[in-house]
C-alpha cells in the first residue's frame, strides 16, 4: 500500500515538527467528538484540501459512498482469511470448471428512493461496465444474465475463479436512475444506493451521511458519519489532540502511549503493508547494476537487522515479514513447505550475506566493500523526499549492509519523479511496499507483482511489476492458479509451492518488514471497533468497504 504509506510517512515528518513544538503532551485532551452530538462520528480519511462533489462509485476521483451508500454483492475482509460477508448477494457458487458463477440476491431490498432492487439492476451495472471500458476497472469481460428477480449468473469463456472477488466487490447502481446518465462524466450529486447510509449533505469541507431507516439490515446505531477535510495527517494529529475527530488512520506522536495522552482514544495497528527494497532485477530487459545478480539480493536480505530497523525507523509499529509475501500471521495457511524461513531473519546474518556474495564470485575489496569484475557493490536506493521513516530506514540499512560489505546510497526525489523512475525502470533499488488484492489471498499479490504481463523493458512503462521480474514457471503457475477455485487449497498448493520457491530464490523484491497501519479511534464515545479478537474488517478509514462495515457495527456510548 504505497500511497497510504505515503501519507503516513509524510505525517511522521510533520510530526517531528509538532513534537519539537511541544504540541504533544501538554495540551488539553479534548472532551467531546467535536462534531456536535454524540451520535455523529467524525472521521478523517486523509483527504487533503477541499472535497469536490463526486459520488459516482466508478469515478477514480469519487470522494465517498462506496460501501456506505452503494453496496456490493459481498464484502471481503482483507484483514483475515474468512468467508465473504453477504450483502446484496446471499449465496454464490461457481460451476465445476469456473466459467459460470451463480449468485442469489437478497430479497426485499429497496433503493433509498423507494424503488425495488432487482436482478435487473445487477445485470445493468455489469453490462454498463463492460460497455464502458474507461470505468471498467475490474476488467469485467463476461456475460451477466438475470435468471429471475433474485438470481443472476455470470458466464465467462475461460475459468475465472480469481475474478470472483472483483465481481463481488463491484458497487451496484440503480438502473432506473443510471440508464439515462453518462456513467463516466456524471458526478451523481444525489447518490441513491441500497446501503445502510444515505447522503445527508455535502460541503467542500465535509460531507455527512446519515443512517438509512429503510435499510434491509439493522439500522446503524451511529446516526451520522461526517467526513472532514484537513490539510494532512499533521492536521489530523492536531485534531485528535483537540478531540474534534473520532477516527483517523495515520500516526500521531508518541503512538504507544495514545491512551495515556488522550484517554478518550486508543490506537490499533494492523499489518498489511509489506515493505520491500524493490530491485530492477532483470538484466535481460535492460536493468543495470549489481542488484541484477540474485546473490546480491539475497545478501541484502540477510544483511538487514530488522529488529533494529523497526526500533529506529518505525517506532516499533512494524511487524515481521514472510519471504513468500504471505501476510504474517493472517495468511500463514498459504505458506508451503518450500519456505524454510517462515519470516525474514530478525537479526543481521552478515555471514550468510557474505557467503552468498562469495559463492557468486564477489570478492571483498580493500575498502570493506565487495567488488566483482571491477564493479563495486554499491547500490542506490530511491526514496521519496519527506518520507522520513523510509529515509531513516535506508540510513539504518546502509550501516547494517556496510558490515556485510554492501554499500547503500539513498537518493531522494519527489514522489512524481520517484514514480517515473520505477515505472520506466531507471533505478537500482527503491524503497516501496507491495499491496494486497480484493480478497485475502496471496494469489493477487503474486499476479500483480511477479507476472511478466505487467512488466516491460527498461525505458517503457511497466505496470505493477516494475521490478521487471520474468520467470516462465511463475507465469505458468499464476495462470494455473487462475483456473482453480480460491478455496481449493489442496489443488492450489502445488502452484503456490512453485511460485514461492521461485520468488524466494530470485527475490526481485527484498522483504524488509510489514508496515503497520495504525488507526486512532475514540473508544470513550463509540464501541464496537475491530479488535485482535474480532477483526471483522481491515481497520483503516480510507479503505472504504472496510470502513463501511465498521460504521455499521459501531455503537455510540452514553
Amino acid at each position, binding site marked *: 500500500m504505497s500511497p497510504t504509506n505515503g501519507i503516513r510517512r509524510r505525517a511522521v515528518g510533520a510530526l517531528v*515538527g509538532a513534537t519539537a513544538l511541544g504540541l504533544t503532551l501538554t495540551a488539553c485532551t479534548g472532551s467531546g467528538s467535536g462534531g456536535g452530538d454524540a451520535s455523529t462520528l467524525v472521521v478523517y480519511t486523509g483527504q487533503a484540501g477541499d472535497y469536490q462533489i463526486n459520488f459516482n462509485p466508478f469515478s*477514480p*476521483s469519487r470522494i465517498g459512498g462506496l460501501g456506505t451508500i452503494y453496496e456490493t454483492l459481498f464484502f471481503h475482509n482483507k484483514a483475515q482469511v474468512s468467508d465473504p460477508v453477504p450483502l446484496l448477494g446471499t449465496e454464490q457458487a461457481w460451476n465445476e470448471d469456473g466459467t459460470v458463477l451463480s449468485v442469489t440476491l437478497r430479497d426485499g431490498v429497496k433503493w433509498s428512493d423507494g424503488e425495488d432492487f432487482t436482478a435487473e439492476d445487477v445485470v445493468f451495472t455489469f453490462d454498463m461496465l463492460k460497455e464502458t471500458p*474507461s470505468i471498467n476497472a475490474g*476488467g469485467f469481460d463476461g456475460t451477466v444474465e438475470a435468471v429471475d428477480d433474485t438470481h443472476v449468473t455470470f458466464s465467462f469463456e475461460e475459468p475465472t475463479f480469481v475474478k470472483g472477488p472483483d465481481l463481488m466487490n463491484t458497487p451496484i447502481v440503480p438502473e432506473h436512475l443510471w440508464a439515462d446518465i453518462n456513467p463516466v462524466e456524471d458526478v451523481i450529486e444525489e447518490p441513491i444506493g441500497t446501503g445502510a447510509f444515505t447522503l445527508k449533505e455535502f460541503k467542500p469541507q465535509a460531507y455527512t451521511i446519515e443512517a438509512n431507516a429503510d435499510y434491509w439490515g439493522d439500522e446503524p446505531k451511529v446516526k451520522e458519519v461526517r467526513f472532514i477535510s484537513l490539510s494532512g495527517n499533521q492536521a489530523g494529529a492536531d485534531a485528535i489532540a483537540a478531540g474534534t475527530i473520532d477516527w483517523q488512520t495515520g500516526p500521531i506522536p508518541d503512538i504507544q502511549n495514545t491512551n495515556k495522552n488522550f484517554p478518550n482514544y486508543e490506537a490499533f495497528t494492523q499489518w498489511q503493508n509489506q515493505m520491500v527494497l524493490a530491485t530492477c532485477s532483470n538484466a535481460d530487459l535492460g536493468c543495470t547494476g549489481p542488484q541484477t545478480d540474485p546473490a546480491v539480493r539475497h545478501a541484502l536480505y540477510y544483511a538487514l537487522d530488522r529488529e533494529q530497523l523497526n526500533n529506529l525507523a518505525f517506532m516499533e509499529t512494524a511487524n515481521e515479514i514472510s519471504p513468500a509475501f504471505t501476510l504474517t500471521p493472517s495468511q500463514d495457511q498459504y505458506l508451503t513447505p518450500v519456505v524454510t524461513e517462515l519470516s525474514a531473519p530478525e537479526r543481521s546474518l552478515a555471514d550468510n550475506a557474505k557467503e552468498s556474495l562469495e559463492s557468486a564470485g564477489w570478492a571483498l575489496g580493500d575498502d570493506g566493500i565487495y567488488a566483482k569484475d571491477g564493479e563495486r557493490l554499491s547500490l542506490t536506493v530511491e526514496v521519496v523526499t519527506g518520507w522520513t521513516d523510509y529515509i531513516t530506514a535506508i540510513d539504518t540499512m546502509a550501516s547494517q549492509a556496510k558490515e556485510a560489505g554492501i554499500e547503500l546510497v539513498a537518493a531522494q526525489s519527489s514522489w512524481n519523479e520517484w514514480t517515473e523512475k520505477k515505472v520506466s525502470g531507471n533505478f537500482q533499488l527503491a524503497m516501496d511496499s507491495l499491496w494486497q488484492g480484493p480478497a485475502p489471498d496471496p494469489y493477487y499479490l503474486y499476479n500483480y507483482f511477479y507476472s511478466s504481463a505487467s512488466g516491460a523493458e527498461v525505458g517503457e512503462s511497466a505496470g505493477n511489476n516494475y521490478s521487471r521480474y520474468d520467470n516462465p514457471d511463475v507465469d505458468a503457475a499464476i495462470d494455473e492458479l487462475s483456473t482453480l477455485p480460491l478455496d481449493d487449497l489442496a489443488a492450489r498448493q502445488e502452484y503456490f509451492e512453485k511460485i514461492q520457491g521461485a520468488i524466494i530464490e530470485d527475490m526481485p523484491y527484498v522483504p524488509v518488514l510489514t508496515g503497520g497501519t495504525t488507526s486512532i479511534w475514540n473508544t470513550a464515545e463509540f464501541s464496537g471497533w475491530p479488535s485482535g479478537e474480532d477483526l471483522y474488517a481491515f481497520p483503516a478509514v480510507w479503505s*472504504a468497504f472496510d470502513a463501511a462495515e465498521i460504521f455499521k457495527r459501531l455503537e455510540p456510548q452514553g
Partner: protein
Amino acid sequence: MNYFVRKLSFYAVALWAALTLNFAIPRMLPGNPVDILLAKLQQRGGTVTPETREAYALLLGGDSSDPLWVQYWDYLKNLARGDLGVSVSYYPTKVSDVILTSLPWTVVLVGIATIIAAVLGVALGAFVGWKPGTWLDTLVPSTTLLAAVPYFWLALILTYLLARVLGWFPMQGGYDVVLTPGWNWEFISSAITYGFLPALTIVLASIAGWLLGMRNMMVSTLSEDYILTAEAKGLTPMKILRSYASRNAVLPSVAGFAISLGFVVSGSVITEQVFSYPGIGGRLLGAVTNNDYALMQGVFLFITLAVLGANLVVDLLYGLIDPRTRARS
C-alpha cells in the same frame, strides 16, 4: 495617449509570454497523472490491477500523441473561449469550477489581511517616522523580527498558543462544518472566527515591510523644504503630519499596495496548509503533486492575470497622477 498605447502593448506581450510559459512548465514535470491517480485510488482502499490502469489511461486520455504545437494552438484557442479544460485530479469537474469554489476564500482572507497589514503598517510607519530616534523606533526591529521568523514557524507557534493552549480560536478549517455556507450571520460569524487566526499570522508576518518603508519615506520627506515652510507658516504638527508629510511619503506604498493585491489571488500556500484553509493555495499544491496540468495552468493563469492586471492599473494610475511619468516616457 501614446504612453497608454505603449503600456498596453507591453502588457499584451507580457501576457503572451506568461501564457506560453504557463503551457510549457507543467509539461516538464516528471511523472504522469494516471500513475498518480492510481496511487490515490489505492490510498482509498481500491485494488489496482492491470485492468484498472488500462481503464483510467483510457478515461484520462493518457499521453497526448498530438505534436506540441497542435496542443499549444488548442490551448490558446480554448483559453480565448474561457475553457480551461477538465481537472484530472477532480475528474470530471471543470477547472474553472474548481478554481471558482476556492477563490473567494483566498481573496477574502488574504485580501482583508493584506489591507489590514498595509493600513496598520503605513499608519504606524508614519508615526514612527514622525518622531525618529524616540522609543517608537523600537517598533521597527520588533516587527522585522516577526517578519524574519519563518512564516510557518510563526503560524505554528500562534496556533499552539491561541488555539491549543488558550482555546480562543479553532485550529483548522474555514468555517464550522455543521453550518451551511450562505449569507446568514451564523455562517459569516463562524467564517470570521475561523479566519481570524490565519489572518493574524499574515498581518504579523507582513506588517514590518509596510512599516519600515513608510517610516523611511517619512524621515526623508521630513527633511524636505516644504515641511520647513509649513512649520514656518505655523501649522499644527498634526496638520503637517497628515497633509504634508504623510501624503507625499505614502506614494510608494500605494504602488506597492496595488501590486501586493495582485498577489492576493495566489494566496498563501503555507497559510492554507497550516490552517487547513479551503483556498486556492491548497488547490495549487494538490495540482502540482497530482500532475494535474489543466488545474495548474488554470491557477497559474489566474495568478498571472491578477498580477499583470494590478501592475497595469498602477502604471496607468501613475500616468494620471504623476505628470512626470508621462513626460519622461
